[in-house]
């Protein structure tokens, strides 16, 4: 893989000028926000439930190394084979080795963001193994040759006319129809055969329970169940942060995740996989593997504040409520994880030198943190990453300091000098009141501001002056 680099402004420009894309996102996000709101009418319930959810995740992270060891021991005792990978390249190699050893030619995939992060499909394809996505949304974007634009609803950027056209073009015998039931039936028809002839299934994991050695996988379609049950081999891939201490911890998180994500009280299916097929059992994979991927997560873990990023349960509520994401869509974020969580996760996994513009592509409005079911303080972490980009304080962040520039440090140095000296400030304010409005609109910053706004008008007298004149500053004590 060639190294990717974020170009938020450039990609946003393209997205903002695509009215269809913008309409698709606006409609989808409005719907998702309304559905989520309907799930949490009781503020008290939301408060106690999310406090529990956040604590459960924080506890698991506090004991992460021990829990990973416990998970590995439990799974191994259960007959599941556990692998570890430091990088996505290593994880791809592990998966490929397992598949090759089993003589696998055809893979069916359940939805998994971690395998997107690994670009696994391309790797398998290059090695002669066909991997077919089976989540309807993932299948659609695979047909279209695109990447997901949302972590829960991968093809949310497309409308049904675009999908109808794609199906008519790519699926044999399919005529153009915008009827969603017919489109869904067409996918079912094609994918049923792919499930039946697959030699292996690959899935993600929502929660890995250390106490019992159980992999929890939630979904609505049944593709996750099929991928992990019908083929003789199942490989689950997950980030090392997905571990939970106890089985009971699944309950509050399950009550948070689908309600936050799609406004469903629960997903249609909640899979709990603990063993491969046991003697006497008639179905289920004969071998189950779990690949634990690090890819920078253990580095993130090294900073206690930034490690809150790892609490994420991938519900996507943050992007559904993000006014920036809503307008520019998921592809603007270049990397696998879009939206507010992507803006804090990507720069940490890929480096601030590759994605340093992402923490700045936010108004810090806080809509994300308000709905985060595990209370990740996203705006604070965005601000923290902005700091790491210019003056690194932690070894945890890749590419720290890469955003430093002389003009910027001089600018903020000057700003601080001005605003930390009452006398200099008052003099400047007076001068701005007298001459500020003569500033030409082509000056940097003013130029961007006035592209769609009128020039702000300096008042002739500052509040400092008016307050003094009106006697509000006589008795300062």
């Amino acid at each position, binding site marked *: 893989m060639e190294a990717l680099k974020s170009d938020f402004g450039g990609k946003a420009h393209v997205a903002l000028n695509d009215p269809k894309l913008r309409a698709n996102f606006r409609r989808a996000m409005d719907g998702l926000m309304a559905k989520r709101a309907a799930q949490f009418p009781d503020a008290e319930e939301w408060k106690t439930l999310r406090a529990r959810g956040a604590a459960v995740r924080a506890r698991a992270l506090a004991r992460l190394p021990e829990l990973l060891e416990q998970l590995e021991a439990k799974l191994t005792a259960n007959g599941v084979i556990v692998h570890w990978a430091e990088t996505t390249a290593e994880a791809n190699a592990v998966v490929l080795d397992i598949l090759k050893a089993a003589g696998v030619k055809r893979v069916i995939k359940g939805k998994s963001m971690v395998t997107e992060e690994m670009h696994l499909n391309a790797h398998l394809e290059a090695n002669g193994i066909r991997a077919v996505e089976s989540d309807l949304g993932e299948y659609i974007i695979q047909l279209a040759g695109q990447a997901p634009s949302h972590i829960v609803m991968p093809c949310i950027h497309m409308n049904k006319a675009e999908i109808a056209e794609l199906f008519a073009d790519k699926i044999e015998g399919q005529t153009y129809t915008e009827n*969603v039931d017919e489109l*869904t039936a067409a996918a079912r028809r094609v994918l049923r055969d792919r*499930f039946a002839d697959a030699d292996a299934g690959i899935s993600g994991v929502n929660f890995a329970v250390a106490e019992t*050695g159980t992999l929890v996988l939630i979904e609505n*379609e049944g593709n996750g*169940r099929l991928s992990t049950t019908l083929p003789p081999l199942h490989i689950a891939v997950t980030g090392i942060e997905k571990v939970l201490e*106890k089985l009971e911890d699944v309950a509050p998180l399950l009550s948070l995740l689908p309600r936050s994500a799609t406004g469903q009280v629960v997903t249609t*299916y909640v899979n*709990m996989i603990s*063993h491969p097929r046991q003697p006497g059992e008639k179905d289920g994979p004969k071998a189950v593997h779990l690949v634990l991927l690090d890819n920078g997560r253990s580095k993130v873990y090294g900073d206690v504040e930034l490690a809150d990023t790892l609490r994420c349960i991938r519900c996507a509520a943050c992007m559904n409520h993000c006014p920036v994401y809503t307008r520019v869509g998921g592809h603007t974020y270049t990397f696998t994880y879009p939206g507010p969580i992507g803006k804090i996760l990507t720069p940490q996994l890929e480096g601030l030198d590759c994605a340093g513009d992402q923490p700045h592509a936010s108004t810090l409005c806080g809509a994300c943190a308000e709905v985060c079911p595990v209370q990740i303080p996203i705006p604070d972490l965005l601000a923290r990453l902005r700091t790491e980009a210019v003056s690194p304080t932690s070894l945890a962040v890749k590419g720290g300091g890469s955003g430093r520039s002389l003009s910027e440090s001089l600018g903020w140095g000057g700003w601080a000098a001005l605003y930390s000296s009452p006398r200099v400030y008052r003099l400047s304010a007076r001068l701005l009141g007298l001459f500020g409005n003569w500033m030409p609109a082509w000056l940097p910053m003013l130029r961007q501001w006035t592209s769609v706004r009128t020039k702000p008008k300096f008042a002739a007298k500052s509040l400092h002056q008016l307050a003094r004149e009106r006697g509000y500053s006589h008795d300062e004590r």
Partner: protein
Amino acid sequence: MTSARDRILVRLKSAPRRTMPERPDWAAPRYGEGRVTQFRAMLEAAHADVCEVARADWPERLRVILANKGVSRVLFAPATATGRQLAEAWAAGDAPKLVPYDRSIEEMKAVLVHEVQASVTTARSGIAQTGSLVLWPTPDEPRLMSLLPPIHVVLVDKGNIRDSLAETMQVEGWAGSMPTNAVLVSGPSKTADIEQTLAYGVHGPKELIVLVIGDDA
């Protein structure tokens, strides 16, 4: 040479220790007398059909339901009590043909993937809060029964309907007894990936029929 595992664990263990927050109080909802009503309402909202049936009557009720849907081949678990009751009740008359799941999937794949139209399984328990069925597959009642046929019929004992997942896990002692695969089912297979429009039966069953078995109903 150290392994990836060791290097990852060393990094994690060398990170600053952090405080463990307590699990703050949280209680899943309780429904008391309204438990079955809630269970039923949630499942129906998720597009499932729910019938309350007496223990002795369900095979006949199911025969009528499936006949109305034109079902002719039904997958069943011959070695379970439910399967035996069904086979016995449907032996005579014009009931759909019962197809036993009695060999491994490798031998039965074509039948399961393409031929049977419906299946009958049992649920270990039901969860009122979310309208979920707890399927706990066994060698006699395998996993794919509830997944491949277009219509899935589930029997759940009224007395086994509980308030919440948290309660169910605790009362039934799941943590000490997780099976190969347990699954919560809360409706027919569905998707909203195309323009957030709901469509049913994308990969799993298009219809879910829940028979709530009571000794009185």
